């Protein structure tokens, strides 16, 4: 198995504003969101980060996608450091999270070309890829409709397609099925499995057990910023259902959650 992602001692602490302190109901100005995270992912697998709300999943993925910088530690995506070579990392990954929005004013067709250009995709490849991706997700009928006039589900699909214009080897996906109806969610999970079959690596985050059971080859369980377990699903579950095993782990690590 070829290692394609290596995360070593990743740390991220946020400084909270007064307003955030109120929301988090804490007096401390610092919030440790990710605490010394270390794991690896292999080529061609779906790796899931599983954790409760506020565990630090999104923060971890945003660091891997180089949107934010770690305070300490580093990660290597296909050999490129997220700290030292962020531009190279960005060229290798496709990152998808609800935080990333598409400009309302443009059409899927325009946006596909625009982002393909920013990724330096060859024009002939681009046209081919656009056609097949748009067909795959049923976007072809809406290719000339402005994003603002698309339904939520269609917007999500367009976002997914746009994040993959450069056919990246590594796909980082925060909460892939959040806010999607069952049909759209199914389209997405099917597609992720398809991508894995093509040899792509997918790093996703979720708090949904069934999604992990359905998709993930290996899982990292993250609680309050710390990785408590990281292994194949079978090794972690040890005969129990993932849900039962998760609550066991959660209890064992209760001291972490204070």
């Amino acid at each position, binding site marked *: 198995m070829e290692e394609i992602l290596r995360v070593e001692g990743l740390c991220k602490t946020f400084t909270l*504003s007064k307003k*955030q302190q109120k929301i988090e109901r804490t007096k401390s100005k610092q919030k440790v969101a990710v605490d010394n995270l270390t794991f690896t992912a292999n080529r061609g697998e779906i790796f899931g980060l599983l954790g409760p709300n506020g565990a630090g999943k999104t923060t971890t993925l945003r660091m891997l*996608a*180089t*949107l*934010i*910088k770690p305070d300490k530690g580093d990660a290597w995506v296909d050999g490129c450091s997220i700290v030292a070579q962020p*531009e*190279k990392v*960005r*060229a290798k*990954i496709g*990152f998808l999270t609800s*935080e*990333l*929005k*598409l*400009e*309302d*004013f*443009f059409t899927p067709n*325009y946006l596909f070309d*625009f*982002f393909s*250009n*920013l*990724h*330096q995709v060859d024009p002939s490849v681009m046209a081919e890829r656009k056609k097949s991706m748009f067909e795959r997700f049923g976007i072809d009928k809406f290719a000339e409709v402005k994003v603002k006039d698309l339904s939520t589900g269609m917007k999500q699909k367009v976002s997914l397609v*746009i*994040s993959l214009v450069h056919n990246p080897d590594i796909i980082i996906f925060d909460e892939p099925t959040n806010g999607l109806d069952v049909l759209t969610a199914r389209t997405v999970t099917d597609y992720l499995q398809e991508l894995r079959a093509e040899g792509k690596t997918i790093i996703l985050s979720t708090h949904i057990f069934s999604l992990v059971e359905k998709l993930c080859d290996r899982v990292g369980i993250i609680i309050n910023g710390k990785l408590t377990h990281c292994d194949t699903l079978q090794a972690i579950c040890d005969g129990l259902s993932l849900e039962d095993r998760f609550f066991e782990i959660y209890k064992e690590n209760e001291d972490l959650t204070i």
Partner: protein
Amino acid sequence: MKINNTLTIIKKEFTRFFSDRSMVFTTVIMPGLLIYIIYSLMGDNMSESNFTVEATEPTTVYVENLPPSILPLFDSIPMNIVTHDIVSEDIMKQLGDKENNIAYMIFPENFDSLVANYVPASETLAPNIKIFYNSVNDGSSMTYHMLDGALNAYEDSYCNRFDVNRYDDADSPSFDQSDESEVISNVLSQLIPMLLLMLLFSGCMAVGPASIAGEKERGTIATLLVTPMKRSQLALGKIISLSVFATLSGLSSFIGIILSLPKMFHADELNMDTNLYSASEYILLLLVLLSTVLVLISVISNLSAIAKDVKQASTINIPVSLMMIVVGMMPMIMGGATENPTLYLIPFYNSVMAMTAVMAHEATVLTLVLTICSNLVYAGLGAWILTKLFDSEKVMFGK
């Protein structure tokens, strides 16, 4: 590769801007149109009031050495002739003020005998009648034309034995005592730079916050930040395209001003030269403007990048607009452009001073070069800071 991404961004910004009709209308077409309409209306009102009030009063004409033979000639001209107690200096001074509906006519002494004895073909100059007047004062101007017409008609019948308002030597005072065109360029040179600066500012505000704080607010800039494009390319692409839009907006206002100037100062009715400025002066003005817009856009872009949303972006740009007003008023406060070259390194102040100098026909190469070059440096600095801001997660993703 590098230029490519900047171009891609510029192309996108252009598509966004130009395919949005309401955007083009409000930022490019409306400013010029509004200025043209408002200024033309203002100009119309000004000229009307001038004519109705002053032209009805008969002009007071001071006449030195009035020959009795001429008197019947003036019967049909409505004016009050004053022939006594004439103090030449006093009258000339009064003539300088366009409020005074007066004229000053000087006949040579013994005009009648001079004319009678004059031999037209001879080498000596014909007797000359001087008429001083003020062309900006409608009464004075009108009376002058009537006197001139009457005397010339009389001269024709008299075999060209005298002249009216012949320039004998270059040192003699101009017969038209108004210096209105100078006054106009002075007023313009002090007023228009401020106006232009304000117009440019509003042009920048129309596009800057929406494009930068707006993208941040809507989360579309994050989508750009996860592409392999360099932050500097994004900053450059934004600054260049926003500058173009702001320039178009400023240019529209500028054209509005130029087209309405002749109307504003009712130049057509005064036979005034409407070409106050030469083509090269307009080009210099444009170059200063373009360099200014780059600085202005980079300031507004940086402030918009720091702001959470469009609303906050317009709020934190208010001090900039106040600064523009204060800086714009400097020529009026200082009575013109400064000559100290080092002051032309101060952003915005340099632009206003350079524009003032150009419009007062006083610009020097040194100050213009200093202005434009320092502005380019400031704009570059602005782009560099914007790059840093795009790269800062606190600024881009801080909550």
